């Protein structure tokens, strides 16, 4: 489906934010914002929800803890009861102190790597991926707002009119297939 995209480029994060606020309060939907650094406060304006990656990290950590517990219980208590200094491992609970360091390390290992991999997959940022920022300057000092015409209930003229006094530096329109 053919669509028209408007890219409005700003030179300052505060200007970008006030402009986004104005557009959104007039019912315009902003599809995306590209910025060189995290612009604090932009997410609620353009409707980006908080990520749930933290919950994922917790679940990965829990998985790690479980695996470590199952593993060590099997290795040290069930499969081969090692007798160290006259203290054989007959039960996991009674020897739990010795198992705490590895449980902790393995929990952190799984939580950190699980979350990092999920993060990269969700973002689709992986080796060999193509960059999708509309202008190379958005990783330097420019902020670009992307507005898709197909998302809007109003026409292009109305958007142009709203954008006019927001202090953008460049405006670009692109037609996509």
């Amino acid at each position, binding site marked *: 489906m053919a669509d028209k995209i408007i890219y409005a480029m700003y030179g300052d994060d*505060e200007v970008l934010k006030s402009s986004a606020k104005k557009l959104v309060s007039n019912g315009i939907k902003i599809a*995306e*914002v*590209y*910025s*060189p*650094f*995290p*612009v*604090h*406060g*932009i*997410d609620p304006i353009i409707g*980006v929800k*908080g*990520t749930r*990656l*933290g919950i994922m*990290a917790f679940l990965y950590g829990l998985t790690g803890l479980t695996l470590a517990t199952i593993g*060590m219980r099997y*290795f*040290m208590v069930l499969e*081969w009861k*090692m007798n*160290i200094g006259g203290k054989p*491992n007959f039960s996991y609970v009674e*020897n739990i102190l*010795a*198992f705490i*360091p*590895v449980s*902790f*390390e*393995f929990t*952190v*290992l799984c939580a*950190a*790597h699980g*979350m*990092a991999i999920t*993060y*990269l997959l*969700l*973002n*689709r*940022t*992986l*080796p*060999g*991926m*193509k*960059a*999708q*920022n509309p202008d*190379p*300057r*958005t*990783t*330097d*000092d420019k902020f670009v707002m992307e507005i898709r015409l197909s998302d809007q209930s109003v026409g292009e003229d109305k958007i142009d009119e709203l954008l006019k006094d927001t202090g953008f530096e460049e405006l670009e329109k692109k037609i996509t297939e």
Partner: protein
Amino acid sequence: MQKEAAIREPLILGHKTYHDVTEDVCKPIEDKAPRMWYILFSIALIIGLYGVGSICYLLGTGIGVWGLNKTIGWAWDITNFVWWVGIGHAGTLISAVLLLFRQKWRMAINRSAEAMTIFAVFMAGTFPLIHMGRLWVGYWVLPLPNHFGSLWVNFNSPLLWDVFAISTYLSVSLVFWYIGLIPDFATIRDRAKKPVSKRMYSILSFGWSGRAKHWNRFELVSLVLAGLATPLVFSVHSIVSFDFATSVVPGWHTTIFPPYFVAGAVFSGFAMVQTLLLVMRKAMKLEAYIHTKHVEYMNIVIMVTGSIVGTAYITELFISWYSGVEYEAYAFLNRATGPYWWAYWSMMTCNVISPQLMWIRKLRRSLLFTFFISIIVNIGMWFERYVIIVTSIHRDYIPAAWSMHYPSHIDIAVYIGTIGLFFTFFLLFARYFPVLALNEIKTILKGSGQSYKESPDYHKHH
């Protein structure tokens, strides 16, 4: 936007814009390397290769080429291991603990401190691996199914905890570091003109585009990784100290070891950060970002952790007498007055006296003095490990077995070699990677930058 008091010293000096920050950090990467870089790199590489050669000789001949003997089974190898792991503690402390405490000054130093951490842990890991003698069976430390023999690895052993601690620490630090690097690689990618470097940085930046949702996730991932890395930092050196503390050797069998080792690690890590950054800021013209205030903050950390270390030394001495255990008392008496007295007193001078000089504001704000002290601290912390390890075991329970440790040529070559390799890696990092966290620096430019603080409307926002 977060504002801070106008009377606080700005963290970014000069009248910088977002673009200036990008320019300042990317310029050294895009320009030709200065001649000095090639000279330093060649020296570091030659020393590093000498170390690699010595390691090859060691592996081909056997551990007998080291100065170990039947009484002293651990000496330079484990000293160097603990020394490097300790140095590797500053990076994650700066990037994780200081992130949780919202210390903005960390943003100028965290990238290079983390790089230093990773390289230092690499160097540390070398020592236990080559001490196995048979490097090719190094993977036996992992819990593998027991067709290799009849046993699993021993999960009750602190040495195995160390395997888990060090490998978790290394890999988590690496991931933490790389996730922060991705957006900055994208900045270099978008500026690159030469096709080869464009291609390289495209691959390294994983196609980062800077979307709002991605930044949202980025910030949370950084925070959670910091939350995970914080207890990890403390656990790693605690576990390293368990290697000694869980034994029954007088001088090692001490409950004070974990906190004392962690404080010592932070102490030596910050000293190494100072050594490297004081040179780097000058060579790469980053004085506007890493300036006296940053150095002062780090010196305060050195002073505090140095005081903790000093207190621990004195506590150890007191307890060895107060415990009433004559072996324990002898171990400490022997450290201070025995054949290794010079090592003990070097340690005491370097680690207890020198950080106390940081109470003087003028000294802790002097870059030259800081550089000098940072070297002294690194020497002192090496001696600390040597004193703990060698002096505790060289005179054991049976006087007939008493012995001395003299490092062999290979002992010294491997140690110096790891220093060479460390600097080789660090110089490569400084040449090809963004040494400041660009995206983070830009977020504090308005709150802590000099021009914004001095602007007349700074106070209007309050």
